[in-house]
């Protein structure tokens, strides 16, 4: 699905070769500052490599129209962001921002229940805790229908048990829909339990990684 060849990004990353397979869950691990988020951003063209080539579905990423690519390869940033005041507005945001049909009430209610968010659709999203906002963001992602999900530490604000439960739900959603997922985590147990392939990114790291080693 993704093929990276001789990719270099600034003085952060240098990757000789990396494959990410379709239909798999790939987990990126490595020291903080080693460039995990950077790699995710390279995959949906939020960053452009300084050197080298990246293919998505056998087509050069540079040849994809950036917005079109990102609708197929959506990314969730590490810090959850609110798009509107209510839970409902936040769940609709993905569709609204990408010019798609809004999800139905039932779909939205199902999405928040799926991620153990015990809230009404009318609830004030600005009053949610960090962990609740992360789950709301995951629910928002699950309502989109991309080929690939890129998740940057999607459950970092959750306690251990909830983290596992939430990951399980998202992974089963991805598997059921036959999608591909690449995620970053610091939690080795989560990495092992939920991914088909674990990629340690430390060998690819340039300055930042070396400092941390």
């Amino acid at each position: 699905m993704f093929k990276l060849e001789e990719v270099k990004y600034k003085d952060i990353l240098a990757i000789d070769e990396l494959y990410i397979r379709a239909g798999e869950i790939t987990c990126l691990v490595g020291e903080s500052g080693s460039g995990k988020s950077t790699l995710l951003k390279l995959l949906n063209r939020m960053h452009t490599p300084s050197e080298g080539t990246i293919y998505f579905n056998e087509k050069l990423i540079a040849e994809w129209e950036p917005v079109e690519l990102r609708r197929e390869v959506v990314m969730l940033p590490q810090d959850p962001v609110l798009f509107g005041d209510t839970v409902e507005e936040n769940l609709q945001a993905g569709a609204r921002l990408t010019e798609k049909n809004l999800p139905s009430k039932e779909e939205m209610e199902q999405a928040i229940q799926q991620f153990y968010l015990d809230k009404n659709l009318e609830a004030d999203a600005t009053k949610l805790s960090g962990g609740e906002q992360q789950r709301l963001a995951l629910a928002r992602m699950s309502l989109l229908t991309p080929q690939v999900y890129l998740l940057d530490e999607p459950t970092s604000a959750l306690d251990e048990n909830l983290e596992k439960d939430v990951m399980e739900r998202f992974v089963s959603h991805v598997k059921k829909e036959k999608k591909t997922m690449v995620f970053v985590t610091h939690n080795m147990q989560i990495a092992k339990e939920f991914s088909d392939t674990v990629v340690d990114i430390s060998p690819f790291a340039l300055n930042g990684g070396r400092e941390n080693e």
Partner: protein
Amino acid sequence: MNEEIIELTLWQLVAAYIFIVFLLIVVKIRQIPRDKEILISTFRMTIQLLLVGYVLIYLFEHPHPLLTLAVLVIMVGFAIQNIFKRVRGQLNREMKVIIAISMAVGSLVSLFYFNVIVIQFSPWYDPRYFIPIAGMIIGNSMTGVTLGVQTLVEGLRDQRARVEAALMMGATPKEATRKIVDQAFDAAILPTINSMVGTGIVFLPGMMTGQILAGVDPLTAIEYQIAILLGVSGAVALTVIIFVQNGYKVFFNEEDQLRE
């Protein structure tokens, strides 16, 4: 109705400066460090207006299309410079170009529509009409665009994470910044809308007051004032919409990524 206007003598004018002396005493006592600025602005206001007075006398006595157009170009140029100065923080070249284009296109289109269709004075370059109307339209558009630029720049700085998160989901830059762009437009036109609401009750607009003092029938003065308020609203809306529709693009590169 056409009573002779009272000509102000030099001493009457000097008496008016007492207001500034009073203001200076207040800020001195309260130790607000504004005395220098008050002095400079009073001085500048006096000199600028005296000079403009002489320029206007000359223009009115020698009406010529090129002279009127030259004044127009200078007004728009100053307005654009003033926006660059008044916006806090650095503006890059592209942003400056967009500001200049929106000011020029927006205020000139409104101005010519207003002169030719609404007021219909002739010749079209009659400085007695053209210059004051241009001043009001360009001045108000300038204020609007300044507020619009400020709100847009601050919005994109403060809400960078949200814009980026929207892009990551596949939003176009236009969709990702829609809220900020709307806020910028709103901030820019709000003073104009407020001035329409308050006008006649809270304050009597300067143009109308001036005309009434000069002996014009209040109803005629009011007709002019209504027309000018509508014209100014349209001009502000047009300049600001041209600006915001293009201004947000400066923050993105050709790969639809946020610029650093």
